Protein backbone atom coordinates (compact mmCIF):
# COMPACT_ATOMS: atom_id res chain seq x y z
CA UNK A 1 0.00 0.00 0.00
CA UNK A 2 1.42 3.39 -0.94
CA UNK A 3 0.64 6.08 1.56
CA UNK A 4 -0.21 9.65 0.75
CA UNK A 5 2.50 11.98 1.98
CA UNK A 6 0.18 13.70 4.40
CA UNK A 7 -1.29 10.63 6.09
CA UNK A 8 -1.02 10.02 9.83
CA UNK A 9 1.37 7.10 10.06
CA UNK A 10 1.43 5.29 13.38
CA UNK A 11 3.80 2.56 14.48
CA UNK A 12 3.80 2.33 18.28
CA UNK A 13 4.18 0.04 21.25
CA UNK A 14 3.03 0.91 24.75
CA UNK A 15 2.69 -1.23 27.87
CA UNK A 16 0.17 -0.21 30.52
CA UNK A 17 -0.03 -2.72 33.34
CA UNK A 18 -1.16 -5.96 31.71
CA UNK A 19 -2.40 -4.20 28.62
CA UNK A 20 -0.14 -3.86 25.61
CA UNK A 21 -0.83 -1.67 22.60
CA UNK A 22 1.02 -2.67 19.46
CA UNK A 23 -0.34 -0.89 16.43
CA UNK A 24 0.96 -0.08 12.98
CA UNK A 25 -1.51 1.78 10.81
CA UNK A 26 -1.83 4.67 8.38
CA UNK A 27 -4.81 6.96 8.72
CA UNK A 28 -6.23 8.82 5.73
CA UNK A 29 -5.50 12.55 5.64
CA UNK A 30 -9.12 13.45 4.90
CA UNK A 31 -12.61 12.50 5.91
CA UNK A 32 -13.71 10.71 9.04
CA UNK A 33 -11.77 7.69 10.23
CA UNK A 34 -13.53 5.59 12.83
CA UNK A 35 -11.23 4.11 15.45
CA UNK A 36 -13.32 1.18 16.47
CA UNK A 37 -13.10 -1.53 19.12
CA UNK A 38 -14.59 -2.83 22.35
CA UNK A 39 -13.80 -0.97 25.54
CA UNK A 40 -10.29 -1.93 26.60
CA UNK A 41 -9.16 -2.48 23.01
CA UNK A 42 -6.70 0.43 23.17
CA UNK A 43 -8.64 3.10 21.29
CA UNK A 44 -8.23 5.81 23.91
CA UNK A 45 -4.60 4.84 24.56
CA UNK A 46 -3.88 5.28 20.85
CA UNK A 47 -5.75 8.58 20.77
CA UNK A 48 -3.71 9.91 23.71
CA UNK A 49 -0.51 8.94 21.90
CA UNK A 50 -1.62 10.80 18.79
CA UNK A 51 -2.60 13.86 20.84
CA UNK A 52 0.77 13.82 22.61
CA UNK A 53 -0.75 13.39 26.07
CA UNK A 54 1.29 10.18 26.47
CA UNK A 55 4.47 8.93 24.83
CA UNK A 56 4.91 5.47 23.33
CA UNK A 57 7.47 3.13 24.91
CA UNK A 58 8.81 2.58 21.46
CA UNK A 59 7.89 3.58 17.92
CA UNK A 60 6.95 6.65 15.96
CA UNK A 61 4.04 8.76 14.79
CA UNK A 62 4.36 10.89 11.65
CA UNK A 63 1.86 13.43 10.39
CA UNK A 64 2.14 15.12 7.01
CA UNK A 65 5.65 13.77 6.70
CA UNK A 66 6.85 15.22 10.02
CA UNK A 67 7.74 13.18 13.09
CA UNK A 68 5.50 13.92 16.07
CA UNK A 69 7.24 11.32 18.13
CA UNK A 70 10.06 8.96 17.28
CA UNK A 71 11.67 6.98 20.07
CA UNK A 72 14.73 6.13 17.98
CA UNK A 73 15.51 9.73 17.06
CA UNK A 74 14.45 11.05 20.47
CA UNK A 75 11.81 13.29 18.89
CA UNK A 76 8.72 14.20 20.88
CA UNK A 77 6.59 17.19 19.94
CA UNK A 78 4.71 18.44 23.02
CA UNK A 79 0.91 18.24 23.00
CA UNK A 80 0.55 22.03 22.90
CA UNK A 81 2.69 22.26 19.77
CA UNK A 82 0.85 19.58 17.75
CA UNK A 83 -2.14 21.74 16.86
CA UNK A 84 -4.57 18.82 17.09
CA UNK A 85 -8.05 19.47 18.41
CA UNK A 86 -9.21 16.94 20.97
CA UNK A 87 -12.79 16.39 22.09
CA UNK A 88 -12.89 14.25 25.21
CA UNK A 89 -15.66 11.91 26.35
CA UNK A 90 -16.51 14.15 29.28
CA UNK A 91 -16.27 17.56 27.51
CA UNK A 92 -13.71 18.83 30.08
CA UNK A 93 -14.79 22.43 29.87
CA UNK A 94 -13.03 24.87 32.18
CA UNK A 95 -15.55 25.46 34.98
CA UNK A 96 -14.23 28.93 35.84
CA UNK A 97 -14.57 30.32 32.30
CA UNK A 98 -17.83 31.21 30.63
CA UNK A 99 -18.66 29.39 27.39
CA UNK A 100 -17.15 32.29 25.42
CA UNK A 101 -13.93 32.05 27.43
CA UNK A 102 -13.78 28.31 26.89
CA UNK A 103 -14.29 28.75 23.15
CA UNK A 104 -11.56 31.37 22.77
CA UNK A 105 -9.03 29.73 25.11
CA UNK A 106 -7.08 28.11 22.29
CA UNK A 107 -7.53 30.86 19.68
CA UNK A 108 -4.22 32.29 18.56
CA UNK A 109 -5.43 35.02 16.23
CA UNK A 110 -8.96 36.36 16.55
CA UNK A 111 -11.11 35.52 13.51
CA UNK A 112 -14.71 36.69 14.10
CA UNK A 113 -15.93 35.15 10.86
CA UNK A 114 -14.60 31.71 11.74
CA UNK A 115 -15.97 32.11 15.28
CA UNK A 116 -19.52 32.85 14.16
CA UNK A 117 -19.35 30.09 11.53
CA UNK A 118 -18.36 27.48 14.12
CA UNK A 119 -20.84 28.51 16.81
CA UNK A 120 -23.56 28.67 14.15
CA UNK A 121 -22.68 25.18 12.94
CA UNK A 122 -22.93 23.85 16.49
CA UNK A 123 -25.95 25.90 17.54
CA UNK A 124 -24.30 27.37 20.64
CA UNK A 125 -24.80 31.10 20.03
CA UNK A 126 -27.24 31.40 22.93
CA UNK A 127 -24.86 29.77 25.43
CA UNK A 128 -21.92 32.19 25.19
CA UNK A 129 -22.47 33.95 28.53
CA UNK A 130 -23.25 30.83 30.55
CA UNK A 131 -20.93 28.90 32.84
CA UNK A 132 -20.28 25.22 32.00
CA UNK A 133 -21.97 24.06 35.22
CA UNK A 134 -25.29 25.29 33.84
CA UNK A 135 -25.07 23.42 30.51
CA UNK A 136 -26.75 20.13 29.67
CA UNK A 137 -24.59 17.18 28.63
CA UNK A 138 -25.26 17.69 24.92
CA UNK A 139 -24.62 21.45 25.10
CA UNK A 140 -21.33 20.91 26.94
CA UNK A 141 -20.15 18.46 24.24
CA UNK A 142 -21.04 20.93 21.51
CA UNK A 143 -19.06 23.67 23.27
CA UNK A 144 -16.13 21.26 23.63
CA UNK A 145 -16.25 20.51 19.90
CA UNK A 146 -16.41 24.24 19.14
CA UNK A 147 -13.48 24.93 21.45
CA UNK A 148 -11.37 22.37 19.60
CA UNK A 149 -12.41 23.58 16.14
CA UNK A 150 -11.68 27.24 16.91
CA UNK A 151 -7.98 26.46 17.34
CA UNK A 152 -8.05 25.67 13.59
CA UNK A 153 -6.53 22.25 14.18
CA UNK A 154 -4.88 20.25 11.42
CA UNK A 155 -6.51 17.10 12.80
CA UNK A 156 -9.55 16.64 15.03
CA UNK A 157 -9.60 13.76 17.52
CA UNK A 158 -12.93 12.81 19.05
CA UNK A 159 -13.02 10.31 21.90
CA UNK A 160 -16.52 8.80 22.14
CA UNK A 161 -18.17 12.22 22.19
CA UNK A 162 -21.66 10.70 22.55
CA UNK A 163 -20.96 8.63 25.67
CA UNK A 164 -23.39 9.15 28.52
CA UNK A 165 -26.03 11.01 26.54
CA UNK A 166 -29.59 9.70 26.30
CA UNK A 167 -31.10 8.55 22.99
CA UNK A 168 -32.55 11.86 21.82
CA UNK A 169 -29.52 13.96 22.80
CA UNK A 170 -27.28 11.34 21.21
CA UNK A 171 -28.91 11.49 17.79
CA UNK A 172 -29.12 15.28 18.02
CA UNK A 173 -25.39 15.61 18.70
CA UNK A 174 -24.62 12.98 16.05
CA UNK A 175 -26.51 15.13 13.53
CA UNK A 176 -24.39 18.17 14.52
CA UNK A 177 -21.20 16.13 14.14
CA UNK A 178 -22.28 14.71 10.79
CA UNK A 179 -23.07 18.20 9.53
CA UNK A 180 -19.72 19.43 10.73
CA UNK A 181 -17.84 16.63 8.95
CA UNK A 182 -19.42 17.81 5.70
CA UNK A 183 -18.81 21.52 6.28
CA UNK A 184 -15.31 21.52 7.72
CA UNK A 185 -12.37 20.24 5.81
CA UNK A 186 -10.29 18.76 8.62
CA UNK A 187 -9.42 15.08 8.89
CA UNK A 188 -11.23 13.58 11.86
CA UNK A 189 -10.42 10.54 13.95
CA UNK A 190 -13.58 9.41 15.70
CA UNK A 191 -13.20 6.88 18.50
CA UNK A 192 -16.24 4.74 19.23
CA UNK A 193 -17.41 1.29 20.21
CA UNK A 194 -20.78 1.86 18.57
CA UNK A 195 -21.17 0.65 14.98
CA UNK A 196 -24.28 2.76 14.39
CA UNK A 197 -22.35 5.97 15.12
CA UNK A 198 -19.52 5.00 12.81
CA UNK A 199 -21.83 3.85 10.04
CA UNK A 200 -23.46 7.26 10.22
CA UNK A 201 -20.33 9.34 9.77
CA UNK A 202 -17.12 7.39 9.04
CA UNK A 203 -15.60 6.80 5.63
CA UNK A 204 -12.62 4.80 6.86
CA UNK A 205 -12.34 2.37 9.69
CA UNK A 206 -9.50 1.18 11.90
CA UNK A 207 -10.44 -1.89 13.91
CA UNK A 208 -8.61 -2.58 17.16
CA UNK A 209 -8.95 -5.56 19.44
CA UNK A 210 -6.97 -6.12 22.61
CA UNK A 211 -4.32 -3.62 21.65
CA UNK A 212 -3.81 -5.00 18.14
CA UNK A 213 -4.91 -3.89 14.72
CA UNK A 214 -7.51 -6.27 13.23
CA UNK A 215 -8.27 -4.46 9.99
CA UNK A 216 -8.29 -1.05 8.39
CA UNK A 217 -9.68 0.38 5.18
CA UNK A 218 -12.82 1.83 3.64
CA UNK A 219 -15.91 1.43 5.75
CA UNK A 220 -17.92 -0.11 2.89
CA UNK A 221 -15.21 -2.65 2.14
CA UNK A 222 -14.81 -3.72 5.76
CA UNK A 223 -18.56 -4.00 6.25
CA UNK A 224 -18.65 -6.56 3.47
CA UNK A 225 -16.06 -8.82 5.11
CA UNK A 226 -17.74 -11.80 6.73
CA UNK A 227 -14.72 -12.44 8.95
CA UNK A 228 -15.24 -9.05 10.63
CA UNK A 229 -18.94 -9.56 11.32
CA UNK A 230 -18.36 -10.37 14.96
CA UNK A 231 -16.35 -7.17 15.43
CA UNK A 232 -18.64 -4.93 13.43
CA UNK A 233 -21.96 -5.29 15.13
CA UNK A 234 -22.36 -9.09 15.22
CA UNK A 235 -26.08 -9.74 15.65
CA UNK A 236 -26.83 -6.14 14.64
CA UNK A 237 -24.42 -6.01 11.71
CA UNK A 238 -25.48 -3.75 8.87
CA UNK A 239 -24.29 -2.55 5.51
CA UNK A 240 -24.56 0.86 3.89
CA UNK A 241 -25.77 2.01 0.49
CA UNK A 242 -25.13 5.41 -1.04
CA UNK A 243 -28.20 6.95 -2.59
CA UNK A 244 -29.49 10.28 -3.92
CA UNK A 245 -32.76 11.92 -3.01
CA UNK A 246 -35.22 11.89 -5.96
CA UNK A 247 -38.54 13.01 -4.59
CA UNK A 248 -40.63 13.29 -1.46
CA UNK A 249 -44.06 11.81 -0.77
CA UNK A 250 -45.24 14.03 2.08
CA UNK A 251 -48.72 12.43 2.16
CA UNK A 252 -47.23 9.12 3.23
CA UNK A 253 -44.17 10.49 4.99
CA UNK A 254 -41.83 8.81 2.53
CA UNK A 255 -38.80 9.81 0.48
CA UNK A 256 -37.75 8.16 -2.75
CA UNK A 257 -34.07 7.73 -3.44
CA UNK A 258 -32.10 6.31 -6.32
CA UNK A 259 -28.99 4.14 -6.28
CA UNK A 260 -26.13 4.64 -8.73
CA UNK A 261 -27.49 1.92 -11.04
CA UNK A 262 -30.87 3.66 -11.28
CA UNK A 263 -32.84 1.35 -9.01
CA UNK A 264 -35.12 3.13 -6.59
CA UNK A 265 -35.95 2.78 -2.92
CA UNK A 266 -38.57 4.13 -0.55
CA UNK A 267 -37.37 5.23 2.85
CA UNK A 268 -39.07 7.03 5.72
CA UNK A 269 -39.27 10.79 5.05
CA UNK A 270 -35.84 12.39 5.14
CA UNK A 271 -35.41 16.13 5.49
CA UNK A 272 -33.03 16.51 2.57
CA UNK A 273 -32.95 18.47 -0.67
CA UNK A 274 -33.56 16.76 -4.01
CA UNK A 275 -30.26 15.50 -5.33
CA UNK A 276 -28.57 15.33 -1.93
CA UNK A 277 -26.52 12.21 -1.22
CA UNK A 278 -27.62 10.01 1.66
CA UNK A 279 -26.01 7.05 3.28
CA UNK A 280 -28.57 4.34 4.03
CA UNK A 281 -27.92 1.87 6.78
CA UNK A 282 -29.57 -1.50 6.30
CA UNK A 283 -29.33 -4.16 9.02
CA UNK A 284 -28.32 -7.52 7.54
CA UNK A 285 -31.24 -9.24 9.28
CA UNK A 286 -33.74 -7.01 7.50
CA UNK A 287 -32.90 -8.12 3.96
CA UNK A 288 -34.89 -11.01 2.47
CA UNK A 289 -34.21 -12.69 -0.88
CA UNK A 290 -36.64 -14.03 -3.43
CA UNK A 291 -36.04 -15.77 -6.76
CA UNK A 292 -38.69 -13.69 -8.54
CA UNK A 293 -39.96 -10.13 -8.06
CA UNK A 294 -42.92 -10.29 -5.68
CA UNK A 295 -46.42 -9.00 -6.22
CA UNK A 296 -49.03 -8.52 -3.54
CA UNK A 297 -46.51 -8.19 -0.77
CA UNK A 298 -45.79 -5.36 1.62
CA UNK A 299 -42.05 -5.08 0.94
CA UNK A 300 -41.81 -1.73 -0.82
CA UNK A 301 -38.24 -2.14 -1.93
CA UNK A 302 -37.36 -4.82 -4.44
CA UNK A 303 -33.85 -4.63 -5.87
CA UNK A 304 -32.36 -6.67 -8.65
CA UNK A 305 -29.22 -8.20 -7.23
CA UNK A 306 -26.68 -10.91 -7.83
CA UNK A 307 -25.16 -13.16 -5.17
CA UNK A 308 -21.42 -12.42 -5.02
CA UNK A 309 -20.42 -14.33 -1.93
CA UNK A 310 -21.95 -16.70 0.55
CA UNK A 311 -20.57 -18.20 3.73
CA UNK A 312 -21.83 -19.90 6.86
CA UNK A 313 -22.23 -17.59 9.85
CA UNK A 314 -19.17 -18.10 12.10
CA UNK A 315 -21.16 -18.62 15.31
CA UNK A 316 -24.75 -19.40 14.40
CA UNK A 317 -25.09 -22.78 12.61
CA UNK A 318 -28.60 -21.89 11.47
CA UNK A 319 -27.53 -18.74 9.61
CA UNK A 320 -25.74 -17.89 6.43
CA UNK A 321 -24.13 -14.60 5.40
CA UNK A 322 -24.73 -13.47 1.81
CA UNK A 323 -23.11 -10.59 -0.08
CA UNK A 324 -25.13 -9.17 -2.92
CA UNK A 325 -24.05 -6.95 -5.78
CA UNK A 326 -26.43 -4.09 -6.62
CA UNK A 327 -24.85 -2.08 -9.38
CA UNK A 328 -21.37 -1.25 -8.14
CA UNK A 329 -22.46 -1.37 -4.51
CA UNK A 330 -22.73 -4.27 -2.13
CA UNK A 331 -25.45 -5.23 0.29
CA UNK A 332 -25.38 -7.92 2.92
CA UNK A 333 -28.14 -10.29 3.95
CA UNK A 334 -28.33 -12.86 6.74
CA UNK A 335 -30.64 -15.78 5.91
CA UNK A 336 -31.31 -19.19 7.36
CA UNK A 337 -29.11 -21.91 5.92
CA UNK A 338 -32.30 -23.85 5.20
CA UNK A 339 -33.72 -21.13 2.92
CA UNK A 340 -30.44 -20.89 1.06
CA UNK A 341 -30.44 -24.63 0.43
CA UNK A 342 -34.12 -24.87 -0.51
CA UNK A 343 -34.00 -21.90 -2.90
CA UNK A 344 -30.61 -22.84 -4.29
CA UNK A 345 -29.07 -19.46 -3.40
CA UNK A 346 -25.55 -19.93 -4.70
CA UNK A 347 -22.92 -17.49 -5.91
CA UNK A 348 -23.79 -16.06 -9.32
CA UNK A 349 -27.52 -16.46 -8.90
CA UNK A 350 -29.70 -13.47 -9.79
CA UNK A 351 -32.21 -12.68 -7.07
CA UNK A 352 -34.52 -9.96 -5.85
CA UNK A 353 -33.54 -8.37 -2.54
CA UNK A 354 -36.51 -7.32 -0.43
CA UNK A 355 -36.10 -4.55 2.12
CA UNK A 356 -38.89 -3.10 4.22
CA UNK A 357 -39.08 0.69 4.12
CA UNK A 358 -39.29 0.62 7.89
CA UNK A 359 -35.96 -1.20 8.16
CA UNK A 360 -33.97 1.94 7.37
CA UNK A 361 -32.72 3.34 10.61
CA UNK A 362 -30.05 5.94 11.21
CA UNK A 363 -29.23 8.03 8.16
CA UNK A 364 -27.04 10.98 7.43
Amino acid at each position, binding site marked *: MTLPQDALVIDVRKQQGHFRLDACVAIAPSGVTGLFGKSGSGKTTLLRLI*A*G*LDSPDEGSIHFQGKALTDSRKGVSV*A*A*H*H*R*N*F*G*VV*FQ*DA*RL*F*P*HYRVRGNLT*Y*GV*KRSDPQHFSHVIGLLGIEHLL*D*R*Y*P*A*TLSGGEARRVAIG*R*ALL*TKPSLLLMDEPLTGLDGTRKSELLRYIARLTRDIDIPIIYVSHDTDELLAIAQHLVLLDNGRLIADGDLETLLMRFDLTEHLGGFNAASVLDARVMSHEPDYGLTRVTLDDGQQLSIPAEDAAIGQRLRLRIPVRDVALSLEPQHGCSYRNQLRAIILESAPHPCDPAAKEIRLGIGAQSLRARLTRKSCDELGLVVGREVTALVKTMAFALRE
Partner: protein
Amino acid sequence: MLSDAEWDAILISLKIAGSAVGWIMIPGIATAWILARKQFRGKVIVDSLLHLPLVLPPVVVGYLLLLSLGRNGWFGQWLDSQFGVTLPFTWQGAAIAGGVMAFPLLVRAVRLSIEAVDPGIEAAARTLGANRWRVLLTITLPLALPGLITGTVLAFARALSEFGATITFASNIPGETRTLPLALYTLIQSPGSEAAAARLCVLSIVIAILSLLASEWLAKRSRRRLQGADAP
Protein backbone atom coordinates in the same frame (compact mmCIF):
# COMPACT_ATOMS: atom_id res chain seq x y z
CA MET B 1 -8.70 53.16 72.55
CA LEU B 2 -5.36 51.42 72.10
CA SER B 3 -2.06 52.51 73.58
CA ASP B 4 0.97 53.24 71.40
CA ALA B 5 2.67 50.07 72.55
CA GLU B 6 -0.40 48.04 71.63
CA TRP B 7 -0.62 49.65 68.19
CA ASP B 8 3.07 48.97 67.72
CA ALA B 9 2.63 45.31 68.57
CA ILE B 10 -0.33 44.97 66.18
CA LEU B 11 1.37 46.72 63.28
CA ILE B 12 4.63 44.82 63.78
CA SER B 13 2.70 41.55 63.97
CA LEU B 14 0.80 42.27 60.76
CA LYS B 15 3.96 43.43 58.99
CA ILE B 16 5.94 40.37 60.04
CA ALA B 17 3.16 37.85 59.37
CA GLY B 18 2.34 39.50 56.04
CA SER B 19 5.97 39.45 54.89
CA ALA B 20 6.34 35.88 56.11
CA VAL B 21 3.40 34.73 53.97
CA GLY B 22 4.64 36.90 51.12
CA TRP B 23 8.06 35.32 50.86
CA ILE B 24 6.87 31.72 51.20
CA MET B 25 4.05 32.10 48.66
CA ILE B 26 5.92 31.28 45.45
CA PRO B 27 8.25 28.60 46.87
CA GLY B 28 5.22 27.16 48.71
CA ILE B 29 3.07 26.90 45.59
CA ALA B 30 5.99 25.49 43.60
CA THR B 31 6.66 22.84 46.25
CA ALA B 32 2.97 21.98 46.49
CA TRP B 33 2.69 21.62 42.70
CA ILE B 34 5.75 19.37 42.51
CA LEU B 35 4.46 17.16 45.32
CA ALA B 36 0.98 17.01 43.81
CA ARG B 37 1.89 16.39 40.18
CA LYS B 38 5.36 14.81 40.00
CA GLN B 39 6.62 11.39 40.92
CA PHE B 40 10.30 11.17 41.84
CA ARG B 41 12.64 9.15 44.00
CA GLY B 42 12.89 10.37 47.57
CA LYS B 43 9.49 12.08 47.49
CA VAL B 44 8.67 10.59 50.91
CA ILE B 45 11.87 12.03 52.38
CA VAL B 46 11.21 15.49 50.93
CA ASP B 47 7.67 15.30 52.25
CA SER B 48 8.83 14.43 55.79
CA LEU B 49 11.54 17.13 55.80
CA LEU B 50 8.89 19.67 54.81
CA HIS B 51 6.80 18.74 57.82
CA LEU B 52 9.70 19.10 60.28
CA PRO B 53 8.81 22.65 61.41
CA LEU B 54 5.39 21.32 62.44
CA VAL B 55 6.80 18.68 64.77
CA LEU B 56 10.10 20.18 65.98
CA PRO B 57 10.04 22.46 69.01
CA PRO B 58 9.99 26.00 67.54
CA VAL B 59 13.03 26.91 69.65
CA VAL B 60 15.01 24.28 67.74
CA VAL B 61 13.98 25.86 64.44
CA GLY B 62 14.97 29.28 65.77
CA TYR B 63 18.31 27.95 66.89
CA LEU B 64 18.94 26.30 63.50
CA LEU B 65 18.12 29.60 61.82
CA LEU B 66 20.59 31.34 64.10
CA LEU B 67 23.26 28.76 63.21
CA SER B 68 22.75 29.15 59.46
CA LEU B 69 21.61 32.76 59.02
CA GLY B 70 23.27 34.29 62.09
CA ARG B 71 26.17 36.70 61.69
CA ASN B 72 28.59 33.79 62.01
CA GLY B 73 26.41 31.24 60.24
CA TRP B 74 27.57 29.91 56.86
CA PHE B 75 24.81 31.64 54.92
CA GLY B 76 24.55 34.65 57.21
CA GLN B 77 28.24 35.39 56.77
CA TRP B 78 27.86 35.35 53.01
CA LEU B 79 24.79 37.61 53.15
CA ASP B 80 26.69 40.03 55.39
CA SER B 81 29.80 40.16 53.21
CA GLN B 82 27.97 40.29 49.86
CA PHE B 83 25.00 42.51 50.63
CA GLY B 84 25.60 43.85 54.11
CA VAL B 85 22.38 42.18 55.22
CA THR B 86 21.97 40.94 58.78
CA LEU B 87 18.86 39.04 59.71
CA PRO B 88 19.03 38.14 63.41
CA PHE B 89 17.36 40.62 65.75
CA THR B 90 15.53 42.41 62.91
CA TRP B 91 11.89 42.28 61.83
CA GLN B 92 13.01 40.72 58.54
CA GLY B 93 14.54 37.93 60.58
CA ALA B 94 11.26 37.50 62.42
CA ALA B 95 9.49 37.27 59.05
CA ILE B 96 11.93 34.52 58.00
CA ALA B 97 11.27 32.61 61.22
CA GLY B 98 7.49 32.99 60.85
CA GLY B 99 7.65 31.93 57.20
CA VAL B 100 9.65 28.81 57.96
CA MET B 101 7.15 27.80 60.64
CA ALA B 102 4.16 28.49 58.34
CA PHE B 103 5.64 26.86 55.21
CA PRO B 104 4.38 23.28 55.80
CA LEU B 105 0.84 24.50 56.48
CA LEU B 106 0.74 26.45 53.23
CA VAL B 107 2.23 23.60 51.19
CA ARG B 108 -0.17 21.08 52.69
CA ALA B 109 -3.33 23.06 51.92
CA VAL B 110 -2.21 24.06 48.42
CA ARG B 111 -1.05 20.55 47.59
CA LEU B 112 -4.40 19.04 48.57
CA SER B 113 -6.29 21.53 46.44
CA ILE B 114 -3.99 21.01 43.43
CA GLU B 115 -4.45 17.27 43.76
CA ALA B 116 -8.20 17.85 43.61
CA VAL B 117 -7.90 19.58 40.21
CA ASP B 118 -8.81 17.09 37.45
CA PRO B 119 -5.63 16.41 35.41
CA GLY B 120 -7.97 15.80 32.47
CA ILE B 121 -8.88 19.48 32.43
CA GLU B 122 -5.19 20.38 32.38
CA ALA B 123 -4.68 17.92 29.51
CA ALA B 124 -7.54 19.59 27.63
CA ALA B 125 -5.82 22.95 28.05
CA ARG B 126 -2.57 21.52 26.69
CA THR B 127 -4.32 20.20 23.58
CA LEU B 128 -5.61 23.76 23.07
CA GLY B 129 -2.04 24.97 22.78
CA ALA B 130 -1.35 26.10 26.33
CA ASN B 131 2.17 25.53 27.61
CA ARG B 132 2.93 24.42 31.16
CA TRP B 133 2.97 27.98 32.57
CA ARG B 134 -0.28 28.97 30.98
CA VAL B 135 -1.94 25.78 32.24
CA LEU B 136 -0.66 26.52 35.75
CA LEU B 137 -1.74 30.16 35.77
CA THR B 138 -5.06 29.87 33.95
CA ILE B 139 -6.31 26.42 34.95
CA THR B 140 -4.56 24.79 37.91
CA LEU B 141 -4.17 27.74 40.26
CA PRO B 142 -7.59 29.32 39.63
CA LEU B 143 -9.23 25.93 40.19
CA ALA B 144 -7.15 25.43 43.34
CA LEU B 145 -8.01 28.92 44.60
CA PRO B 146 -10.20 27.89 47.57
CA GLY B 147 -7.32 25.78 48.93
CA LEU B 148 -4.87 28.54 48.14
CA ILE B 149 -6.89 30.97 50.24
CA THR B 150 -7.24 28.51 53.11
CA GLY B 151 -3.51 27.80 53.00
CA THR B 152 -2.64 31.49 52.97
CA VAL B 153 -4.84 32.26 55.96
CA LEU B 154 -3.52 29.27 57.88
CA ALA B 155 0.03 30.35 57.13
CA PHE B 156 -0.75 33.94 58.10
CA ALA B 157 -2.28 32.83 61.39
CA ARG B 158 0.67 30.57 62.10
CA ALA B 159 3.16 33.38 61.42
CA LEU B 160 1.09 35.75 63.53
CA SER B 161 1.18 33.42 66.53
CA GLU B 162 4.85 32.50 66.12
CA PHE B 163 6.75 32.70 69.38
CA GLY B 164 9.53 30.21 69.98
CA ALA B 165 11.48 30.51 66.72
CA THR B 166 11.00 34.27 66.63
CA ILE B 167 12.25 34.96 70.14
CA THR B 168 15.25 32.67 69.56
CA PHE B 169 16.25 34.08 66.17
CA ALA B 170 14.96 37.67 66.23
CA SER B 171 14.70 38.31 69.94
CA ASN B 172 12.07 40.52 71.62
CA ILE B 173 12.96 44.09 70.63
CA PRO B 174 10.24 46.71 71.22
CA GLY B 175 9.28 48.44 67.99
CA GLU B 176 11.26 45.95 65.91
CA THR B 177 10.41 42.34 66.63
CA ARG B 178 7.99 42.57 69.55
CA THR B 179 4.88 41.02 68.01
CA LEU B 180 1.59 40.43 69.84
CA PRO B 181 2.61 37.10 71.38
CA LEU B 182 5.97 38.51 72.46
CA ALA B 183 4.35 41.62 73.91
CA LEU B 184 1.89 39.44 75.77
CA TYR B 185 4.73 37.31 77.10
CA THR B 186 6.56 40.44 78.27
CA LEU B 187 3.48 41.67 80.09
CA ILE B 188 2.94 38.34 81.80
CA GLN B 189 6.54 38.49 83.02
CA SER B 190 6.06 41.89 84.69
CA PRO B 191 3.85 41.90 87.81
CA GLY B 192 0.79 44.17 87.87
CA SER B 193 0.12 44.10 84.10
CA GLU B 194 -2.74 41.62 84.19
CA ALA B 195 -5.21 44.09 82.72
CA ALA B 196 -2.88 45.03 79.85
CA ALA B 197 -2.21 41.34 79.19
CA ALA B 198 -5.93 40.66 79.07
CA ARG B 199 -6.36 43.46 76.51
CA LEU B 200 -3.70 41.93 74.24
CA CYS B 201 -5.35 38.56 74.73
CA VAL B 202 -8.68 39.92 73.48
CA LEU B 203 -6.91 41.68 70.58
CA SER B 204 -5.28 38.43 69.48
CA ILE B 205 -8.64 36.66 69.54
CA VAL B 206 -10.29 39.45 67.50
CA ILE B 207 -7.56 39.36 64.84
CA ALA B 208 -7.76 35.57 64.61
CA ILE B 209 -11.54 35.58 64.23
CA LEU B 210 -11.41 38.35 61.62
CA SER B 211 -8.91 36.46 59.48
CA LEU B 212 -10.93 33.24 59.73
CA LEU B 213 -14.11 35.05 58.67
CA ALA B 214 -12.30 36.72 55.79
CA SER B 215 -10.94 33.40 54.54
CA GLU B 216 -14.36 31.71 54.82
CA TRP B 217 -15.93 34.51 52.81
CA LEU B 218 -13.22 34.48 50.14
CA ALA B 219 -13.22 30.68 49.83
CA LYS B 220 -16.99 30.58 49.53
CA ARG B 221 -16.95 33.24 46.85
CA SER B 222 -14.32 31.46 44.79
CA ARG B 223 -16.07 28.10 45.19
CA ARG B 224 -19.32 29.63 44.01
CA ARG B 225 -17.59 31.01 40.99
CA LEU B 226 -16.12 27.63 40.12
CA GLN B 227 -19.55 26.03 40.28
CA GLY B 228 -20.95 28.54 37.83
CA ALA B 229 -21.88 31.98 39.10
CA ASP B 230 -25.23 32.12 37.34
CA ALA B 231 -26.45 28.72 38.50
CA PRO B 232 -29.93 29.13 39.97
